[in-house]
């Protein structure tokens, strides 16, 4: 039995990067301190906030909702609400919605569910089918990412949210960093900070990532220790995304070189100020069709809708 480095209890987590073992109590304390430090360092929340937590029903977002809900009990001027986007992925999303409802009801958190079908007139499954029939060159994750981000911002604003918290963790960040590095897309990398960086628009809800420095293994353990771990279900489209391959390779690297993920995140944090300087002047435009924030005169969501015949 491996013992905790701080007490006599059995360890539940062994950080191979720092060679420290944690029992349940000390792991939760370590986790809490690490998240609080990120929140404080990057000024994620102000005195009065309506925090909208983007929740998919997966372990990371359920953990974030649980964590912020607990934290908000100590701050009477914070209100927490949850927002789930139902893309319409058959055999997948209906399962995670059940897990989502179980947790929001248990925590007593207000919530809203917005769907692709209601907002855009088609589910993601429909979009993929139409895209294939029309010979469009996009992967399912391309539609999903664009429409999901669009709805998160729009509905969070409609809910009266002052800040949108997403459960992106360290692993997500370095995977996205690597994906954009491979595509030589530095403008996208400039947006990978713990708080939304270069985007300025009156309709844009500020975004924060409190789990920015938390490893996916740690958010998973937090979920298990707090009885939040949801049903095991995989998105049928996930393996089509290059992220799937990069994630596996980064995990293999970490296995052989403990600590390499932290180094990658630090590399990202080192380059971010330089990139922000380069892209600082960028003002977001307003989409001429839907009136939402956009980097171009017509936003990506409206372009997709046009191509799919949904506009």
């Amino acid at each position, binding site marked *: 039995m*491996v013992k905790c480095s701080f007490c006599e209890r059995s360890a539940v987590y062994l950080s191979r990067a720092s060679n420290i073992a944690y029992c349940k109590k000390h792991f939760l304390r370590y986790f809490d301190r690490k998240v609080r430090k990120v929140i404080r360092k990057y000024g994620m929340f102000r005195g009065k906030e309506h925090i909208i937590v983007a929740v998919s029903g997966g372990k990371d977002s359920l953990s974030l909702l649980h964590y912020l809900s607990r934290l908000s009990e100590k701050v009477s001027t914070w209100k927490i609400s949850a927002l789930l986007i139902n893309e319409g992925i058959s055999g997948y999303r209906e399962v995670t919605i059940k897990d989502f409802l179980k947790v929001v009801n248990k925590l007593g958190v207000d919530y809203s569910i917005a769907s692709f079908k209601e907002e855009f007139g088609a589910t993601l499954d429909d979009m993929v089918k139409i895209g294939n029939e029309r010979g469009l060159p996009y992967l399912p994750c391309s539609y999903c990412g664009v429409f999901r981000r669009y709805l998160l911002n729009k509905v969070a604003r409609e809910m009266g949210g002052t800040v949108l918290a997403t459960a992106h963790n360290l692993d997500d960040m370095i995977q996205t960093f690597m994906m954009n590095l491979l595509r030589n897309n530095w403008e996208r990398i400039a947006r990978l900070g713990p708080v939304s960086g270069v985007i300025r628009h009156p309709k844009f809800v500020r975004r924060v990532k409190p789990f920015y420095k938390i490893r996916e293994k740690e958010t998973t353990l937090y979920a*298990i220790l707090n009885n939040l771990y949801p049903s095991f279900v995989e998105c049928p489209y996930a393996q089509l995304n290059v992220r799937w391959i990069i994630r596996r390779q980064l*995990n293999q690297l970490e*296995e052989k070189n403990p600590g390499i993920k932290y180094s990658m995140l630090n590399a990202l944090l080192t380059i971010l100020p330089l990139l922000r300087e380069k892209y600082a002047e960028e003002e977001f435009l307003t989409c001429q069709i839907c009136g939402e924030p956009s980097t171009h005169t017509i936003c990506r969501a409206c372009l997709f809708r046009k191509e799919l015949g949904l506009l």
Partner: protein
Amino acid sequence: MAIKVKLPNGDLKIIDDVNEMKVGELLEKLGLLREEYIVTKDGYVITDEDVVVNGDEVVLYAVVSGG
């Protein structure tokens, strides 16, 4: 006697050619990465360095989300 391993998708793997091994070695034997799983025994989370023996039943939780 054997070590029974319940995978996240519900499948069961049986390891019957060793008496005891570390959790990390068990995952390696199954071709899995330590980075991608959390292991429990009798409902309690155990670490990669803990030892499991013949007769134990462990449950694997996926760290990598499928979404």
